[in-house]
Every structure is written in structure tokens, then in C-alpha cells.
């Protein structure tokens, strides 16, 4: 390109630029957007709507740029009218082009009988706006968009022949081994639940079996464990802060020296924050009064094989999910009535906190004072039972504590994904919950 041509091109571009930008500047600053002036990478829409008022359809859709020919466009929208059963129906056909290739949709609008032409155009404009969102969402415009639905609607407004009852059955097995070690465990479980905002009921049960075999110097060391659990919970909602209900649980466990145990516990709960904010913050205080019937497998250190225990417990749980991070802390105290020296105090907490851009800190820990191990067997545990943790051991405390700090700097906004030779961290995570 010669110098003269370059000069001409520059003049032309500038003139065109002023001409195009002119209306923009003239309108500025605040009056509402009259459509068709989105940012540079916004979808370029070519709208065809024979017989309809284009200007009015495009009004207020500021997150796309309307263009006047198909060639310039990245999205083509055609609005047509067709005969349908019992009346007429508008069909809005959205076809993606270039970067939006294969990105297509069709929306429909059927005018209400007796609607004015104004109402029809307004409804079509709203439908057009909804249909264009998927394209704008893929551009930088997305950051400035929001979708609002302010109406309160009950989550139970559905047609449900099961009346919110859900039942589930499950079974799991795990085996592994090598020449001198083999382990296996099996489990079966069921659950039934019905959860509505007014009432919650959940019952579940599981049976577990485990066996480990070690070979050491010709000798075979075998160790097995068996446990059964059953739980039921019923809670009635009493306003935004209070709930009342009860727990029933039963269990049998070789680890805990329990032949069988049944607990009945009515309970009441107060949430300092309204329950409706539960996904953001909760501070729940739960009081439980419990009656426990126990039969032990082996005689205990207190020379008992059966007993009936009355106890109470108070638990405070704080859960926060805030823009700075998350916190979950729980403090629980419990004791038996026949001897208040048989008590337990537990504190657990997990906090992750972003101190500053790139610098995050997390702490996770817990500890307990334990003075209620009424079920310890008189006979004690063997070395294998200790090392393999097959039996509960006498202790007056336990704790765990973990702390981590991580600092990241550099191109923290990079969005590149490069899967070659596997992802950085790699691995598969499997979570199984009952």
C-alpha cells in the first residue's frame, strides 16, 4: 500500500469512525440503551421480522449489536407467523453463524386471544431477548448481565404422585490384596426420606462387614469387624428460627463392644440466623435429651453387660459461606445423669480464608475431653487390635489439627487448558456417601 493510499484509508476510517460513533456520543451519557450498541465482541444480530416494528423489537436489548445484513451477522433471527391449532403462533428461529456455528434454538410465542398489537410486540421483544442470552453469555458481555426472578414460589409446587417420598437401596463391596496382605469389606444400606419445607423425615440403615488377613513369618493374622447402624430423624418446622423433633438410632459394633444399643432422643433446635439463609450462614443450637439401652458384647471395665442410661447434650454449630471464605465450627457437650463425671466435650472447626489475592490460609482441627467410655471391655485389646485399630482404646482426650498456607502469584487469570500428557494434578476422586 502506497503512502497516499494509506493516508486515504486513514481519512476514510476516521470519517467513518466519527460517523458511526457520532450517535453514540450524541446519546451519552445516561438515557436507556436503544439496542444495537453492545461492546466489540458482542453478538452481531441480523433480525428479520416481516410486518413487525424492528426498532421496537430491538429496543432495550443492549447486550447485542444489531446489524443490517446477514453477511455481517454472527446470529440470524427470523420471526415468522404460522397457523397452529386453535390460532396463530410466532416462531423465533435463532441460527448461529461463524463463531456461533451450530448454536441454534427455536422459541415460540402464541398471542392471547384479544391481545393488542402492542402487547404482541412487547411479548415478542421479551422472547427475542431471552433467546439472545445464550450468545451474549459466551462473550465478555456476560459479566454485565444478570437474570432475576423475584417472585417467591414454593418448591413443592409440582405435581408429584409420590408426595415427596424417596426410597433408596444400595450395596457396596471392596476387596484388595497382594501376596502377604488381603482385605475385604462389604456393606448394604437403605434409606427412606420425605423432605418438605414444613417437615423432614429421614430413616436409614446399614450393615458393614470387614476382614483383613496378613501373612507374617508363616503365621496368618486375621482380624474382622462387624457393625450395624440404623437411624431415623423427624423434624417439624416452627417458624424461621425454631424446630422440634426427635432421633431414634440403633447400632451394633465390634469396635465399640456393643452387642446392641438403642437410643431415643427428643430434641429442639434454634437457629440464630433465619433458616432461609442456610446456604450462606447458620448458627444452630441443638438440645437433645436421650435414653439409651445398651447390651455389651463383653463385660466392661465397670463390670456391666447391660445398662440403661439417661443423658443430655447441647451442640452449637456455625456454618458460614462468605465471599472471603468458609467456616464451619461445632462445639458439643454431653453427660449422663447417673454420674455427671461421665461427660464428653468436643470442638471441631474448619476455616478457609483468603487473606489477600493469591494468599489463602486454611485450618482444620478438633479435640475432645472424653470421660464417657462406659463400654470399654475388661479384657483389653491385643497388639494386632491396637495396630489395626479394631477396638476402641481407653483415652481421656483426642485431637487432630491441620494447617495449610498457600501463596500463588503470576498470571492468575490465565484460562488456558492444555490437557497434553495428562492434567497437572491428575488423578481420580471417588466419593461414596451413605
Amino acid at each position: 500500500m502506497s503512502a497516499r493510499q494509506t493516508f486515504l484509508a486513514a481519512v476514510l476510517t476516521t470519517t467513518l469512525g466519527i460517523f458511526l460513533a457520532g450517535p453514540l456520543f450524541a446519546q451519552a451519557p445516561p438515557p436507556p440503551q436503544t439496542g444495537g450498541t453492545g461492546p466489540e465482541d458482542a453478538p452481531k444480530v441480523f433480525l428479520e421480522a416481516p410486518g413487525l416494528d424492528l426498532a421496537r423489537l430491538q429496543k432495550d436489548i443492549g447486550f447485542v449489536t444489531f446489524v443490517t445484513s446477514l453477511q455481517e451477522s454472527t446470529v440470524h433471527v427470523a420471526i415468522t407467523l404460522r397457523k397452529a391449532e386453535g390460532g396463530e403462533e410466532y416462531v423465533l428461529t435463532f441460527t448461529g453463524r461463524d463463531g456461533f456455528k451450530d448454536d441454534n434454538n427455536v422459541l415460540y410465542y402464541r398471542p392471547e386471544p384479544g391481545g393488542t398489537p402492542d402487547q404482541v410486540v412487547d411479548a415478542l421483544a421479551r422472547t427475542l431477548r431471552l433467546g439472545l442470552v445464550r450468545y451474549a453469555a459466551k462473550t465478555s458481555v456476560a459479566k454485565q448481565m444478570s437474570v432475576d426472578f423475584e417472585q417467591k414460589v414454593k418448591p413443592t409446587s409440582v405435581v408429584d404422585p409420590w408426595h415427596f417420598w424417596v426410597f433408596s437401596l444400595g450395596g457396596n463391596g471392596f476387596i484388595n490384596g497382594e501376596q502377604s496382605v488381603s482385605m475385604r469389606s462389604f456393606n448394604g444400606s437403605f434409606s427412606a426420606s420425605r423432605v418438605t419445607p414444613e417437615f423432614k423425615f429421614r430413616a436409614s440403615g446399614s450393615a458393614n462387614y470387614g476382614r483383613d488377613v496378613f501373612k507374617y513369618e508363616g503365621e496368618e493374622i486375621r482380624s474382622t469387624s462387624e457393625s450395624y447402624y440404623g437411624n431415623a430423624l423427624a423434624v417439624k418446622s416452627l417458624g424461621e428460627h425454631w424446630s422440634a423433633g426427635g432421633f431414634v438410632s440403633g447400632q451394633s459394633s465390634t469396635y465399640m463392644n456393643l452387642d446392641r444399643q438403642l437410643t431415643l432422643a427428643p430434641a429442639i433446635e434454634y437457629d440464630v440466623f433465619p433458616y432461609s439463609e442456610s446456604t450462606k450462614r447458620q448458627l444452630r443450637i441443638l438440645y437433645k435429651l436421650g435414653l439409651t439401652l445398651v447390651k455389651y458384647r463383653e463385660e466392661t471395665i465397670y463390670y456391666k453387660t447391660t445398662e440403661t442410661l439417661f443423658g443430655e447434650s447441647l451442640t452449637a454449630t456455625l456454618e458460614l459461606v462468605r465471599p472471603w471464605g468458609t467456616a464451619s465450627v461445632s462445639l458439643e457437650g454431653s453427660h449422663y445423669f447417673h454420674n455427671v463425671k461421665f461427660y464428653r466435650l468436643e470442638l471441631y472447626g474448619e476455616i478457609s480464608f483468603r487473606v489477600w489475592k493469591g494468599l489463602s490460609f486454611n485450618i482444620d482441627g478438633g479435640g475432645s475431653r472424653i470421660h464417657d467410655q462406659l463400654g470399654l471391655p475388661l479384657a483389653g485389646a491385643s497388639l494386632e487390635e491396637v495396630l489395626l485399630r479394631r477396638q476402641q482404646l481407653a483415652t481421656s482426650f483426642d485431637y487432630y489439627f491441620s494447617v495449610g498456607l498457600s501463596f500463588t502469584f503470576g498470571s492468575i487469570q490465565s484460562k488456558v487448558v492444555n490437557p497434553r500428557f495428562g492434567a497437572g494434578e491428575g488423578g481420580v476422586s471417588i466419593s461414596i456417601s451413605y
Partner: protein
Amino acid sequence: MSHNGVRVLCYLLLAAFVLSPFLWPQEKKAEQVDQEIEALKKLAVKVYIDCGSCDLEYIKTEITFVNYVRDRKEADVHVLITTQTTGSGGREYTLSFLGQNGYSDVKDIQKYYTEKTATDDEVRQGLVKALKLGLLSYVGRTPISSRLAVNYTPAAKTGPFVDKWKSWIFSLSGSGYFSGEKSYSYYSFGGSFSANRVTQAMKLNLSGSWRRSEDTFQYEGTEIRSQRDSASLSGLYVFSLTEHWSAGVSVSAQSSTYSNLDLALSFAPAVEYNVFPYSQSTRRQLRLLYRASLNPTRYREETLYAKMRETLWKESLSASLELREKWGTVSASLSGAHYFHDFKKYNVELFGIVQLNLYKGLSIYVIGSGARIHDQIYLPKGGLTKEEVLLQLKQLQTTYSYFAAFGVSFTFGSIYTNVINPRFGSSGGSGVHIEID
């Protein structure tokens, strides 16, 4: 099940019977129920969110203009959410909107990115927004859409983004863990660093880590202590050749008491072929990786083959398949390796995961692996103590290893999961979730 289990069950049934009057409470009509919106909600789009790492309760409280179902086959739109790590250590969320039933002609893909240090709240807010924007393509066909407002506030103009770090990202971290009770205590602490540069054309990962841990048991007056140390340094450089081919080299150094390694070095050029284009990696991959490596090693104790140090050549080939589809997840890998100085020193390993959402409410999973091991050339000549065996402190001699896990779950009843009720604590839904990074 033993008689104990049966008894526990009987108690439970009895308890359920006692509680039964509470189970059908009279639900009072809320004073001001907007009849019309209730009617619209009944016709709202049915959505199945297929995502294990998402905060579903938050999604359900923030997006109330659709109905949530627990089974994919019941849904009008199946939202399959997969994630991958980005070059900056953040996550790329790919939301695949798969229309079905009356909406089978509507499909869409939306993406959403988080930074590495984004908090949970920021992550879920961004995800909810991406979900809302994507769901509008379906909601636009239902009458409830007349109650939605799509707002747009034009942004102030900003200059083009300039990356002064040229795609480099650095990270330092440290952590400690301590636990104990009267007769047992454990601690572990360590640190790590990494430096990465990832672009579409190349990938460079450098990292190092060190960790020490110790168990202490008290048993009949004696103290049993065991300590483990491990440290490693590694580097990987990969350059992209085509949509299917890549080549690179990895170097590493490691030390481990578990594996009797004082210092093991490795230098390995490698080449990879992906049957699917790399651009589909979040949903589909079948990668074949060939690696030849040179391994100078110094041991902590003399090995079974009476060596204190040696330098060996080795080659390995692995194939890994990863699929994330509507019907479930498949991940499988087969790998083999041998030394050049003695072809009998080899290992072959097969690993697989299959999780299928078979039919309404029925899902199964199988995870398994098996290995033939004939290359434990680093095992120490001296035997192990009983504690070392039971606590799995040191690697044992073996010619094979296997593990398998399997499960089945069947759920029936109400298909809707719209309700969030946090009273007396919520428990996450039961089930198995498998995520592949």
C-alpha cells in the same frame, strides 16, 4: 445379617411406627400464595444437574424458576458439568446443556472460569450465573419466562488485557497435620512449590515437595515409633504438535523410606497420541503415551540383588481412556513397563472405573485394578518387622496386587428435589460420585 442386625432393624421399624403420626402433618396453606405463579411453576422445565463438586443446595435456592429432578431420564434438560485445570491453577467449568424429552432439539455449551484462590462463595455465584444464562434457552419455551428479567448494565471501557507475567504462575504452600490420643499419636508436615507456564502451544510444570510423618503407639509400657520421609523434584516440558500429537520430556528426583530409595533420578523423553482431538478433552480422551527413561538410583539399604546403586534403562507404554457422557463415566488405563538389562523385570497394570446411570433410579459402579509386578528391584535385603508389615510402613515383596470395589444403588419415589430443609443439619444425598481430573 446376624440376629443382632435383625433386632436393630426391628427396633427401627417400631420407632418408625411410633413416629408415624408425625409423618403426615397438616400442611397449612401459606397466606398469600400467588396462585398464578404456582401454576406456572408446575409447568417449569425439569432440570437434572450432573455435577459432584457443585453446591446443589445453593443452586436450588438461587434458581427457583425451574424444577429439579433426581434422575436424568426424568429431566427436560440434563446439565452435565465437567471441570479441567487451567494454566493458572484455576478451574474451567464446561456446562453441557443436553435437551431431552420435549426439548431434544436444544443443545448448548457454556463455559465458566475460576481463579485458583477463588473462595467457595465466588465459585458458586459464578456457576449459578452461567447456569441461569444457559437455562434460558429452555425456560424461554415455558410460560414462567414471562416473569423473568434479563438485565444488562454496560461496562465502563477498559483497555486490552496485558499479561506482564507472560503466562507464568508460581505457587508456594506448606501444611501440617497432628493428631493423637492417650496411646497413639501421629504428625505429618511438609511443603511444596510449583512454577508453571501453560499455553496452547506448550506446557512447562516444575514442582518440588517434601514431607515427614511419624506414628507413635504406646503398648504395654513400650513405645513403638515409625517415621516416613519422602521428597521429590520434578519437571515436565510438553510441546503441542497437532490436535492429536504431542512430544515432551520429564525429569525427576525422589527419595523415599517406604520404597528404600535414597536418591532416584529419572530422565525420560516421551511422545503422546490422543485418538480424540485434544479440544474435546473435558468429555473424551484416549491417550497413548510412550516413554523411554534412564534411571540412576542410589538405595538406602542393600537390595535383594545386592546393589547399593545402579543405572538402568526402562521403557513404558500406557493407554488411558476417559469418557464423561450422559449415561455415566468410564475411565480405564493399561500400562506396561520393563527394564532393558533384564526383560523379565517388568510390570503390567490395568485400572478401570465404570459408573453407569442405567435406568430410572438404578446406578452401578465398578472400580478395579490388577497388576503383575516383577520389577521391585529396590526392595531391601533385610526383612521387615511385624509393625512395619501391619502399619504398611515399607513396601512388601509381591508378584501381584489387586483391588476391586463395586456397588449398586436403586432409588424410587418422588423425582423432585426442589426442597432445601436445613433443620437439624442436612446430610448430602447418598450415592457415589466419580470425578476425573
